[in-house]
Structure formats: C-alpha cells, structure tokens
C-alpha cells in the first residue's frame, strides 16, 4: 500500500514536471515566434496613412514601441501577472483579454455542448436504426455537411438571415449602450449569438454525429451487447448504459481537442459575424502588429491546450476503467 502510494505520488510529480516543462517551452515560443512576423507596429500603423515620418521620428517611435527586455524579463512579468500594455488600444492586455474571453467562451462552449450532445444522441439512435432509409439519408446528408467549411455556411447564413430576411443582427455580441433589464439583455445576447452559434454547430455537429455512429456500429457487434440483450434488459438501458457508454471515449477525445483549439477554431466565425471575442482580438492584433497582445493570446491558447490535455487524462480515467490499470 505504502509502496504503491509513493509510486503514485512520484508518477504524479513526474507528470506535473513534464507539463511544466512543456508550458515553459510554449511560453518561449509564444514570446519569440510573433517577433518573427515581418514588419512592426510602426510600419503597420503608418504604412497606410498619409502621414510621412522622418527618419528620426520613426526611430523614436520604434524605440518607444519596442521592448528589448529579453525572455527572462518577460517571464518575470508573467509571473507577476503583468501581461503588458497593448500598443494599439493603450490598455492593459489583461483588460482586453477579460473583455473578449467571456464572449468566446459563451459562443464556443454553447456550440460545443449543443453539437456534442445532439450529435451523440443522434449518432446512438442512428446506429440503432442502422439500415433504414431514414438513417441512410441522414448519414449521407451529414457526410455532405461535414465537407462544407464553416466559412461558407457562415457567409450563407449571414446573407440570408441577417441581410435578406433581417431576422438576426449581422454583427456584435449585444446592442451597444442599451440600458435594459437583465432578462431583456439575456434575450438580446441570445439574439446576437444565434447566427455564429448556428454556424459553429453546423460545423461541429456532423463530425460528432458520424463519430458517435461509427463507434457505436463497432460496439453493437460486441459480445457484451448480446449478453445484455440476453439478460432481458430494457432496450434503452442496453443502448445507453451498455453501448453508448463505450462509444463515449473517442467522442471525449474529439471534444477535448476541439476545445483546446478554441481560439483558432473560432477565429473565422468571429470575423464573419464581427463577434467581439478572442478570435477577433487576435486578428486585429496581428493586423496592427500589436506584439504584446499577440504574445498573450498565443500564450494563453497554448497553455489552454496543455490544460485541456491534462484534464482529458483525468476524464479518461473516469469513463474508461481500463486506462489506469494498463499503465
């Protein structure tokens, strides 16, 4: 027992060490890579304008907007939770982040939860009705939908429902400057959320559906399903407690990885629908060569990947008892 627990602790420590090292490498990359972008803030700001800078002015500006403090300094600041100032917005990066992140989380989280739960249930039910005409049609349609990128669905939805029919707003996350009660605000947010959300759900749902259906198809043939049927269990019990429970694992992986690549995944949709989330922030920052913001967003998204992979490890152990034992 004692030996076992010591062994476990040392294994945990090793895991933390490895993840810490990975985080450090990520930090270094997110610090150094954005610097390799051609051009800088000064050229980005003045390149398109009529104002012509003298050489002295340019050098002065450049000196102002360039921090050559080095990686160690950057790391130290990070530890003190000092993310630096945005060149373009002249506000702390952390404030920008806190402003945009909730919107992204709302959009993406909702999209994922909806697409994974509906996709899973639809996949399970479809696999149970395998071979019927309806099922075949749905699977065909889903395969087609899976091939359409979110950029086209987003644009089409925008054209039809926002511009033509004007059912939904075309941009933003809520009506600006409105002083309204809580519930009206919630409705307003929902109204703005609808189009980007539908775009994302349409993008993620078919994959989840097909994955759930395919893993179910394998599991339905497993001997333990026959055992469950022989036991005279209710049909729904067999479908969910026995079959679907085993189909969960590949879906959890997909969910985790999709969530991990949240920011890049949401960038396109946020741009199309001008949704004020992290993706839009990153896009603007790159355009303006706003180095501190780029660094922060890249760093945060990479750390998020790490965190989610770590979380997945734990989730796996819960949903599949075989995993811990095999190590």
């Amino acid at each position, binding site marked *: 027992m004692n030996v076992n627990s010591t062994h476990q602790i040392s294994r945990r420590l090793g895991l933390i060490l490895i993840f810490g090292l990975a985080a450090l490498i990520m930090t270094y990359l997110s610090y150094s890579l954005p610097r390799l972008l051609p051009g800088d803030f000064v050229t980005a700001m003045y390149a398109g304008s009529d104002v012509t800078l003298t050489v002295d002015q340019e050098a002065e500006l450049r000196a102002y907007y360039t921090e050559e403090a080095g990686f160690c300094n950057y790391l130290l600041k990070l530890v003190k939770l000092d993310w630096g100032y945005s060149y373009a917005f002249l506000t702390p990066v952390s404030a920008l982040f806190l402003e945009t992140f909730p919107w992204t989380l709302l959009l993406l989280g909702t999209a994922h939860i909806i697409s994974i739960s509906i996709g899973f249930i639809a996949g399970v039910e479809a696999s149970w009705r395998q071979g019927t005409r309806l099922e075949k049609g749905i699977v065909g349609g889903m395969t087609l939908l899976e091939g359409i990128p979110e950029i086209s669905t987003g644009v089409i939805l925008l054209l039809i429902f926002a511009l033509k029919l004007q059912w939904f707003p075309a941009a933003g996350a809520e009506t600006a400057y409105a002083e309204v009660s809580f519930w009206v605000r919630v409705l307003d947010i929902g109204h703005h959320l609808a189009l980007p959300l539908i775009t994302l759900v349409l993008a993620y749902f078919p994959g989840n559906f097909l994955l759930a259906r395919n893993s179910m198809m394998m599991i339905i043939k*497993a*001997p*333990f399903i*026959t*055992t*469950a*049927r*022989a*036991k*005279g*269990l*209710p049909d729904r*019990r067999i479908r969910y*407690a*026995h079959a679907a*429970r*085993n189909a969960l694992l590949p879906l959890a992986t997909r969910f985790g990885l999709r969530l991990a690549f949240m920011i890049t995944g949401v960038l396109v949709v946020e741009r199309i629908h001008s949704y004020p989330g992290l993706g839009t922030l990153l896009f603007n920052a790159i355009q303006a060569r706003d180095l501190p913001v780029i660094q922060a967003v890249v760093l945060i998204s990479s750390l998020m990947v790490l965190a989610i992979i770590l979380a997945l490890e734990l989730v796996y152990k819960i*949903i*599949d*008892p*075989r995993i811990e*034992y095999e190590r």
Partner: protein
Amino acid sequence: MNLNIKNLSVIYQNGSHSIQALEEVSIDIGHGKCVALVGESGSGKTTLGKACMGLLPSNASWKGRVNINGQQLENLDESVLNEMRWDKIAMVFQNRAGNLNPVHCIVDQVAEPLIQRGFSSRKQANIKAGKILEQMGVYREYLYRYPHQLSGGQLQRVLLAMAMILDPEIIILDEPTSSLDALSKLFISEIIDQFKSKGKAVLLITHDLEIAAGLADTVHVLYLGRILETLPASDLLLKPLHPYTLALGRSYPTMTTARDLGGIKGDVFYRLVHQHGRHDQDKYRHTHIQVPDSSHKDGHAPPFGCLFQSRCTQAINRCQNENVPLEKIGDHMVRCLRSGIADILSLKGVSKSYGNVPALYPTDLILKCGELFCLIGETGSGKTTLAMILAGMLKQDSGEKTFEGRDMDQWAKQEYQSLARRIGVIYQNPAESISPRFSVFEAVAEPLKIHKKAMSRESIQNGVSRVLARVRLSADPSFLKRYPHELNMGAIQRVCMARALILEPALLVADEPTSSLDPSVQAKVLKLLLDLQIELGLSMFFITHNIGLARKIGDRIGVMLAGRLVEVGPADKILSGPRHPYTQLLINSARGLVKNTFKPGSKEIKPVGCPFVSRCPRHKDLCREKSPEMVDLDYCRVRCHFPLTVDHLYEN
C-alpha cells in the same frame, strides 16, 4: 416446465448465399436433466443456444418450434420474450474477452437484471449479487473490479453468477469449461450438478467430451446443423454407434485413453444454400458443403444423402443419394444408412480342433469397421488359430463367419479371389512367408498380378513404390532386386506388410506384425497404419505380446486363454481395470510387478472348470466344477465366475 425444441431450422441469409446453421433439430430437456450438445465448431451448437433465447441476429430466419416452459417462442411478443429472458431461461455465454461490458464493474453487471426489473433496490441487488458471486467462488475483494482485472476462470464464474441471479429454470451453458484448469473444471461441473439437483433444465454446449459424458444425461451429436446421433451420455466415449461420434471420441484426449489421438479426415466449415442463374428459368436452389479445398463451380450437382459421407470411412454408394432418417437403435438415435458403425466381420460359435486337441472353443467375436482390435494372451492360447480363421486361411470346424455382410465360407467357395482382395494378411514368421527365390519387387508386385489390379509395367511399378514408401522402405532399383536372404528381419517384415497392403484391403489381419522392427521403425509404421485407419477406415486385427503396444494403438482388446476369449472390451477399460484375474496377471507381468509365477505343471488344464483355476489366487469350488460363461459387464465381456471389481484394483 422445460425446454422443447422441435424441428428447428436456422438459415443465416447473406445476399444470394445463405448458411444453413441448423436443420430440423429436435431436443427435449426435462426438469433436473442435463442435455449436452457436442460437435465440431461450425456445427451450429451456439446458434441453437441463441435460438432458444430468441437472440438470433436479424439476418437469421428460423422455422420450427421452441417451447419454453409451455410457451411457444414463435408466438411470443418481443416484450414478453424480453421479460422471459434471464428470468425463465438464461445463458452462460462462451467465455471470450468482451462478454462483459468493460466499463462496468462486475457486481453491477451481475445485479443489473434485478435492478432493471424492479425486483429490488440497487443496494439489495448488489448484496444479492455479491452473495451469488461468492457462492461461485468470486470473493468480496473482486466485486468492484472491472472485467479486465479478472482472470479467465474468474470471468467464467462471473458469467455463471450472472446467469443465476434471477434463478432461471432453464440454463444454457456455452463451452463453460473451455480454457479452464482441471480444478476450475471440477468446480463448474459441481455447479452444473447443483443445477440438476435443484430441478433446473440444463443445456450444455461443449467440446469437452469427458464433461459431456460425466455431467449430461443425454448427448446430441451435431454435425453441420443436423443431429447425427443421440445417445446416453455414458455411451459417448465407450459405445458410440455413429462413425462421427466414434471419430470425435478418438480425437479427444481423456485421462483414461492411452491410445494415440486419431482425428477425422477432411474438414468442413459450413453448409451453403444458394441459387444459380440470372434468369428465372435456370434458377435453382441447393445446398452444398463449404470445405477448405472447394472450388465451387457453377451448376455442380447438389449433394444429397448423408452430410458426413465425404469424411466417413464406411460410406457406400447409397450414402451419396439417399435421404438419411434418424433411426432408433437400442437407446440411441442414429442418422446413418448403415445403422451406425457396421460390422466388418463377425464370428458365431466358431471352433477348431487339430485332431483331438481343441485349439479354439466356440467363440463369438465381432469386428467393427475401422477398428483396431488387439488380441493378447500367452503362447498356445489359440491366438494364431483365431486369426487365421478370421483371415479365411483356415476353415473352422463349426460355427459361421460373416464378412461384410456375406457368409464367408460361401464367398470363399464361389469367388475366393475377391474375398482375398479384401483381407490382407501378415504372417507370424516374415522370413518364411516370402519365397526365397522372389526379389523384393516380385514379392510385393505378385498380388497385383494375381488379382489383375494393375497390368502395365508402369502401373505395377508405381503401385509397388507407393506401398513401399508407406512402410518406409526404399524404392531404389538396387533394393528392389534384392532377395530375402540379403535383407535383415526388419526389412523383410516390412516387405510382408507392403505385400499385405498393396491391394488396399478392408481388413488387415496381422500376427505380431512389428515384432522384429526396431522401435523407431515400429513407431513410424504404426503411425502409418493409424493414418490408414483414419483416412481409409482400414480395420485391423493384431496379435501382439506387447501390451504396451496394444495400449497405444488398440481400440479394443481381447484376451485369450486356452482357446477361449476370456475378456473383450475397450482398450482403456481392460487395461485400467481388468476384470479377469488372468488379464490382471498379464498386465502386471508386463509391468514387471509379478515374480516367480512359473511352477512346473501349474498350467495343467482340466476338461471341466475354468482353465485358469490352477493359477488363480481367487478360485473357489465353483471354478473347478463349471466352466464360466461370457457375461456383459460395464462395456466389457468377461468369462469369469467372480470378476474383479474396481475395489480389487486399488487393493493391489
């Protein structure tokens, strides 16, 4: 309240091809009875089990009637059937990885039916499941483990416990003992015995013939979806009537049989049902058997007749095109046109004396097709006389003999040649049985010429070299030209053997055929003879003094004493538990357990009484006065007033 299956046929549809898994199978299992289903894989055993549960896959179509506790399965609504499953009829599935759900712990899976049917709360159900698991030998610390954390034997116990949770009246066990150690097997068979004593009906599907023979009341032998034989379980290994049952028994290693494992020639997978032709007019439907080397040609003739004919060693022309009904023979039901394993030769009251010296007292003996019979006994007991009468070389004084259903004496009188072709003989003294003026080639080829089986020089040469290869002799020209005096005894004996085998006889009678072979050649030659037995169904009658050899190759053993057969029976019965004191003496002498038995004058035989009386330690007055008759005793026949029992065996 039991399980009745009547004329059940199952076909798995698979496009235009379909597989006939079961055909008109009828099985009855009453209360407290255990019925075993044996047969090779692909014979439809598991399909039958699943059919009883109503669990056939969607591509299976079935006909016939399955009656569970008085309810007709085919009339039941799926929801009613689902209620019956596990509650009335439960199945222990074949223990493979994946019969249990990998993500639920075992106690939950065992308790699940109780909870889902609302019989008890989760907590109570888990307690009950824990109790049953404990009864099955899965202890408390394992309850919350997952299937992958248990060993194969433990999983088997979990499956058993799971089937027991609702206390069903009918239990189907699919290979419950495969891949289990001897102790776990014993445990499982005790559990099955408990089921029986609780009045449950048990259907045992198994490859394990020993378990089937030990636990079941009745055994059904299934082959390609048909029942070939139904027999009392105790007869399964000792007195099968169908050639397939015999071949299965020969292939199964038991703890008592010392004989080399046989096998069944050929191989089959399943039966295909298909339909040919693109246009309606040349569409026809037929079944054929899928075998490993089949190259199925369009429009081939559909096979009629016996399913087992291609692998049967006693198949005759009728077997190919006549329908084979299930026929009642004694307490067996046999599906064979020849009424089970045929007799190749039978003697009735055959006796022989030389002048006034009786050599053979009236003797009855039946040789079965494809059987290897070993005759043992001391010198001068009449073994060779019996063998020569069998071979048709010697005419008996009285009694009659029948060979392949024809009276042998008549046959010999009318066309001796055709009879002689069917019986090959190897004589006791090899050197004297070959003419010294014949070369090896001439000696071996002679039967071919006499019987005009091969006329051209080339075909004779081919025949000779093939048979020489069989007895492991060289077919080199220089060897073929040699004369007997140039050969050693081992080679001469093998030349005799080649001579006896070259006409491909149905029966080989051999008087100590391997006595002068060295052990390595003897092993090879015997292996070859056993192969011939499996491939061609060659029947053999061997005289031997080597009891170890008889033990290794004999299906049955006969023991001779002073012109009488004193004990006949299955080899393992005779050798592990001799009933006649003389047999025991022979076996013990062979084992080196007996010393100083030779006393001058002790072999004196009086005309009345048992011939063994002067040497028998157990003789009583009756033995001196009356000659004992042959009596049937536990699959053997013994000529003794006071046969030994199993207890005597352990005394020694």
